């Protein structure tokens, strides 16, 4: 029986490997996801064959979780996707924390009954601490990220005096409590120490994400994703279960790769993203831009667009906020009908999660061929008649290329300022999300169109249709 279970776990692991591999290619991604879900179903079903399970609770728990997950996945809007992914991620982390705790509770309970004094070995104790630590940070960190993404908590980075010292103190407390617990997991002091690790890990998750600004969210989300895998992996060590270790480790590795891709796209190190409190200070550094923003009316913008042959659209978080993706798609259609080439240039860190803009534009049915990456559009951007920047800021800020004093200096950007004309759709005159001035807005070839992005784009579409 045990052999059957373990063989099935191997099969599940193979399905996960193929599933993740196929998720990395556009034409096989959906099938890959299905294959990995079959692996998951297999792993769960054979686990149900284990001896002595309390079936009422097990099946009840699975039923409750399935219904909640089903409803959440069905009802979510594509614009709400970053929040939901963060929330699911947090649940996974908390589950791993609880598994670690439950295993210790079980083992120590036996110890109290005098059955097996040395039941909790040092190694098991250490991995219990790890599962609880990583799981706890993942849980509250993801919850805080969820709050930021859904706008329930301010998106800006939040810093306070002595924050780094405070976080270091939390980390130190976790290490001390964790070591005391690990060295004597059956001593009287062990349980309070374990509870201390739980509380401190939960706090650390909150205070670690707090100082990270909204623009850095793609990095945070993918890092937390990696952590949820590692937490499952640690839980696997606790119960000596191969399939947890393999699956958790695969997720940990893929999340880390995504994190690195995001960091590279901003030309910053992970350490810098996590600890710099980027975006907390508004306009502290960087040269103040000279020149004025030149507003243009929707009507005048229409005349320029009407004469254009080559247009790129550069979407950012503002497009998600305004839910303008459907209007933007329509604008693309009317422009094409007007014999104009339309492309959508997508920066890797545009939006609040990796691939955010792709998801939104896919929802609006923008043809895949029209989506181009930064590196493909930059070399020929001088040929572009009009670049329409919709709610993007840092990813088109020329300071990243030519102002060494700017905090985002060195970040690769889409060179919208080199297009013949640039329209910037913006809600107001204020600085962007990160609090940085953007020289693009005052460039000689830039025109500002103020107002809600959706209303503006719909207005342009109406102009085309009326003519």
């Amino acid at each position, binding site marked *: 029986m045990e052999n059957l279970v373990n063989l099935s776990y191997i099969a599940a692991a193979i399905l996960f*490997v193929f*599933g*993740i591999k196929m*998720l990395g290619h*556009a034409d096989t*991604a*959906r099938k890959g996801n*299905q294959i*990995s*879900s079959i692996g*998951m179903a297999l*792993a769960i079903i054979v*686990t149900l064959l284990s001896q002595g399970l*309390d079936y009422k*609770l*097990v099946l*009840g*728990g699975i039923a409750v*979780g399935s219904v*909640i*997950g*089903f409803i959440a*996945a069905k009802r*979510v809007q*594509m614009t709400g*996707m970053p929040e*939901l*992914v963060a929330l*699911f991620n947090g*649940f*996974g982390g908390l589950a791993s924390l609880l*598994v670690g705790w*439950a295993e210790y*509770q*079980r083992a120590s*309970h036996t110890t109290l009954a005098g059955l097996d004094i040395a039941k909790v070995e040092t190694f098991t104790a250490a991995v219990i601490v790890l599962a609880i630590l990583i799981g706890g940070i993942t849980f509250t960190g993801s919850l805080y990220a969820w709050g930021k993404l859904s706008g329930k908590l301010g998106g800006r980075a939040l810093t306070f005096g002595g924050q780094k010292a405070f976080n270091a103190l939390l980390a130190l407390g976790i290490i001390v409590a964790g070591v005391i617990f690990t060295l004597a997991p059956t001593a009287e002091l062990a349980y309070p120490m374990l509870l201390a690790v739980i509380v401190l890990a939960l706090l650390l998750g909150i205070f670690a994400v707090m100082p990270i600004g909204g623009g850095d969210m793609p990095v945070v989300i993918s890092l937390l*994703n990696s952590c*949820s895998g590692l937490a499952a992996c640690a*839980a*696997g060590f606790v119960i*000596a*279960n191969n399939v*947890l*270790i393999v699956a*958790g*480790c*695969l*997720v*940990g590795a*893929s*999340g880390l*790769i*995504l994190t690195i891709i995001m960091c590279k796209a901003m030309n910053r190190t992970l350490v810098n993203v996590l600890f710099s409190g980027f975006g907390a200070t508004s306009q502290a550094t960087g040269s103040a831009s000279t020149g004025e923003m030149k507003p243009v009316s929707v009507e005048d913008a229409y005349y320029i667009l009407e004469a254009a042959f080559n247009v790129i659209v550069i979407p950012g978080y503002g497009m998600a906020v305004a839910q303008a993706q459907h209007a933007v798609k329509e604008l693309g259609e009317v422009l094409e009908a007007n014999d104009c080439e339309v492309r959508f240039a997508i920066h*890797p860190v545009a939006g609040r999660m*990796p*691939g955010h803009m792709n998801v939104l534009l*896919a929802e609006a*049915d923008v043809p895949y*061929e029209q*989506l181009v990456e930064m590196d493909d559009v930059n070399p020929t951007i001088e040929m572009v008649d009009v670049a329409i920047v919709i709610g993007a800021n840092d990813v088109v800020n020329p300071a990243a290329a030519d102002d060494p004093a700017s905090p985002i200096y060195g970040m690769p950007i889409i060179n919208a300022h080199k297009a013949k004309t640039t329209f910037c759709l913006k809600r107001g005159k204020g600085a962007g999300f990160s609090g940085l001035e953007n020289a693009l807005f005052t460039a000689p070839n830039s025109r500002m169109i103020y107002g809600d992005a959706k209303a503006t784009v719909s207005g342009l579409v109406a102009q085309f249709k009326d003519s």
Partner: protein
Amino acid sequence: MEIILLLFIFVLSGFLGFELIAKVPSQLHTPLMSGSNAISGITVVGAILAVNTSSDNLSVWLGFAAIVLATINVVGGYMVTDRMLGMFKKKGK
């Protein structure tokens, strides 16, 4: 010895994970993330094993809560990913 074996598996799957998805088109970043996020719900296996009739009350309820949370992660994660990838698919037309 068992510990060494587990660590062995851990190290190898780590390397495998890094090799699996070296280059991912940015279009797939979100699905990859939510799809792998669903896989991290594998911790549900550990949660199920904790809800054992030989366990004491507290660990059973901890395990039960873990089952609910992990299942939300698994079911929701796979379904959301499938929905997203379904939208990507339509472009082929």
